[in-house]
């Protein structure tokens, strides 16, 4: 492990920790502007986290230790995900520990813990949230993996760093397989990050919520960790998408100048991506829960199609 790699790794960690709430804040700002509202400040998510960390945690009488462990595990999974996705540089010493399949497994582990924690108290909304989260998960997970497989087949490697490095070196051309994969990926990320049209992050209507129902019983520092983890998840998905479909600007090994440029490049890409997300959330309506399987099955089939198109056309 060289110093350079270590530096890149630590930078990635810090950028993820600081950047995730910023992205959240930016999306909220854009959405408020598009809806003709006065926008909350960019740093609002940090204030929220700080406030929540100071509050005491109120826990139900019969909560088991699993309930208290889960926020830390979920936070740990999401942070690790951000550390193995090449956000700024492909020279990450920790990246070989987990490849694309392990990344999906990591999200799955977090989902398992948060769902179990939601069932722990035994309230009706908690179990409902867990059921819906698992429903979305089992449909979105294969679709996400199909997208990653398409990229892996193009670069003949499931290592994220190698994949991104290979994709970055290709000449710019719209490839049919990546186009299909891109649409599938967008749909999956919307569902996985509890955004419109699958879930509404701003909802307070109990019967329609998914993510909020899962974390309904949490408060104080546990809620803060889960909110931060949700922001990290959005950040991880955005960075994964940007790294696969717009891999330019990501530094490679022994390229010091590029590492300096990588951060502004990422910031610009994330800003544009955040605006796009806000736009999608503004113009689409939330769909009924039983339309969600259709939505995600479409994403899955698009992913399979991307894989087949790549194998048939070699593009």
């Amino acid at each position: 492990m060289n110093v350079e790699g270590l530096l890149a790794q630590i930078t990635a960690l810090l950028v993820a920790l600081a950047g995730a709430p910023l992205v959240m804040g930016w999306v909220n700002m854009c959405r408020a502007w598009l809806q003709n509202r006065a926008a909350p400040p960019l740093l609002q998510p940090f204030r929220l986290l700080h406030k929540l960390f100071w509050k005491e945690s109120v826990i139900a009488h019969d909560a088991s230790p699993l309930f208290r462990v889960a926020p830390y595990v979920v936070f740990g999974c999401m942070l690790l995900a951000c550390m193995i996705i090449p956000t700024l540089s492909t020279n990450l010493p920790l990246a070989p520990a987990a490849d694309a399949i392990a990344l999906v497994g990591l999200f799955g582990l977090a989902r398992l813990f948060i769902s179990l924690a939601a069932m722990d108290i035994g309230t009706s909304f908690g179990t409902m949230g867990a059921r819906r989260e698992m429903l979305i998960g089992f449909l979105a997970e294969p679709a996400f993996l199909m997208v990653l497989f398409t990229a892996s087949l193009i670069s003949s490697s499931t290592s994220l760093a190698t994949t991104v490095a290979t994709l970055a070196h290709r000449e710019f051309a719209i490839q049919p397989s990546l186009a299909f994969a891109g649409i599938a990926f967008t749909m999956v990320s919307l569902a996985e990050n509890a955004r419109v049209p699958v879930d509404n992050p701003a909802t307070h209507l109990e019967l329609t919520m998914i993510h909020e129902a899962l974390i309904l019983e949490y408060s104080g520092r546990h809620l803060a960790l889960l909110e931060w983890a949700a922001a990290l998840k959005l950040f991880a998905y955005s960075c994964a998408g940007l790294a696969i479909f717009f891999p330019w600007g990501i530094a490679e090994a022994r390229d010091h100048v590029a590492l300096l440029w990588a951060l502004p490049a990422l910031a610009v890409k994330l800003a544009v991506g955040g605006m796009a997300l806000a736009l999608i959330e503004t113009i689409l309506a939330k769909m009924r829960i039983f339309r969600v399987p259709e939505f995600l099955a479409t994403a899955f089939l698009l992913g399979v199609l991307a894989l087949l198109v790549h194998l048939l056309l070699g593009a």
Partner: protein
Amino acid sequence: MAQIASLLAIDGALIVVAGWLAIGVAGLAALHNVRLVGRLLFPLSALLSVALAGIALLALPGTPQTAVLAIGLPDLPFHLRLDALSAFFLALLGLASAGISVFAGGYFRQGEGTPPGLLCMHYHLFLASMALVLLADDAYAYMVTWEMMALASFFLVTTNHRIAEIRKAGYLYLLVAHVGAIAILLCFGVLQANTGDYTFANMRAQHLSPFWASCAFGLSLFGFGAKAGILPLHIWLPEAHPAAPSPVSALMSGVMLKTAVYGLIRVNFDLIATPLWWWGTIALGLGLATAIFGVVFAAAQVDMKRLLAYSSIENIGLIVVGLGLAIVFNAYRMDALAALALAASLYHCLNHALFKSLLFLGTGSVLHATHERSLGKLGGLMRFMPFVAWTTLVGVIASAGLPPSNGFVSEWLLLQSFLFTGELPNPYLRMLVPVFAAGVVLVAALAGYVMVKFFGVIFLGRPREEKLAQARDADGLERLGLAWLTAGCLLLGLFPVAVLEVIDPITVAMVGKGLAQSGHAGDWLMLAPVSAERASYSPLLFFLLTLSIVLVAFALVRRFYHGRVRRAAPWDCGFPMQTARMQDTAEGFGQPIRQIFEPFFRMRRELPSPFDSAPRYKVTVEDPMWAWVYLRIAAVTEAASRLVGLLQRGRISIYLLYSFVTLVALLSLTQL
């Protein structure tokens, strides 16, 4: 020294088998002495299991050893052989049965049905016959021990034989086992190619024509599929597993199904010299169908042991998918890839043996504590049975195939082998195989759903019945058994490279190449089956990283903020009236799956009317294979026997007429 050790291995294995048989006989002597059987005989048998696993692991890298036992007919002795493949499955048997036997020592108590001493005999006969099946080197020994295994497990399934349903389940199991055994017998008949010599050595030497080789493949798939639970021969599994006592379910699901996988590998990779590629596609298709079917039905179950039985069907499906892929690669002589797919399958066998045994034993503890098998009457047990709950959680994570557990490693290897199919020479296969990969991924994701349902409904939430508050955690021997299997799951998950090195001699023997042998398994930390650029995964690093982030996050939160906690009533959006009945039941949790996969199910719903004073909602999900396959076979059989019945008139003159007509017909034939 190494030579002596390897020479003694097969004898050592036979001594363990003899020890098991002796324990069985001792159990017979102490027919009603639960303390002796539980506290002494079963733990002793577990020690023998550990010894067997040790012997097998020592013998695995060595050269094959043979022995001849003068049992049976005068000119037909038992040929035995211990090679890498047998040794691997013997190690699997030893590792899994060690935990199960210890647990069984605490589990079996005096009760209805078979007395404990007799049960002990059946149990050890079952263990010994499984070991002999794995050692057999000729068709005669194989079939005899295979039948012994089926009969011993039949008696174990029908332990509570005073219940009619259990007798029925046992009968179904026996029937399917025998239909399968006939197919296996025929398969060996084809393999010996009219030489009359039924030793496996002779079968290896034969070169069958593609037609006969394909017949042998089909018969082996049918015969071993009946034991393993491949679609549509799986129907006995969801009946027999809930009927059997939990340690027996664990042994059957964890180990006995693997003997069928062993048979499949033995016949199709070892005895048949030249595989054809399309066998692989059949195995792939059947395996995937089995896996999807199993997992979808597991999601709809409301009985915890039936749920696990369907989950076993799913895992067998995944193993067969891996074997199919290995056959395809093997037929095209892509040895490294065949080794990868075969290693993934074998690894999954080992994983499934441990985590499914663990889960079945967990249900056994729950059953003991609550006398309840129905998920609708459990809940909240994590507070009363923390040890069982936490160990089961490890099994749940493994069964859901999530990192850093062992279940993830084998799924990872399987998916890796799918990603190489771009190098296949056959263009149709190249297109077909990624679709199979998509199916495998779907199964893996659904397994997570099933496991959240399993764990969440049993252990989390509030107790759905009052009596659950009196549930007591497992103790003593039960804990030891659970802990053994949990440790196995963790170690297999964290040190995959060591396991792949163990598997290596097998793939070398079966497909001519190993993963570690060509320097491909990576160093001890990093699992990189092909090359580090291509793919790598390090569970230990993964686990330590997650753990350290969790710990650092915890320490930082405590350092900069505080650790204050207040206990209060649950919030639940401020609803004042909350009862345990407001949680999702097992039916409720499976409802989205039932809705999405509705065409798969045969469902019967009883909906209450709005004016009902005591409304009842009931939904039963049936296995469609009964209606699609078995009831039709039954109808055809009945129609055929009715036709035969037409001949039987019950009057002697008519039978004399038949004889006369037959004679005339024969005479006229000879005249021609």
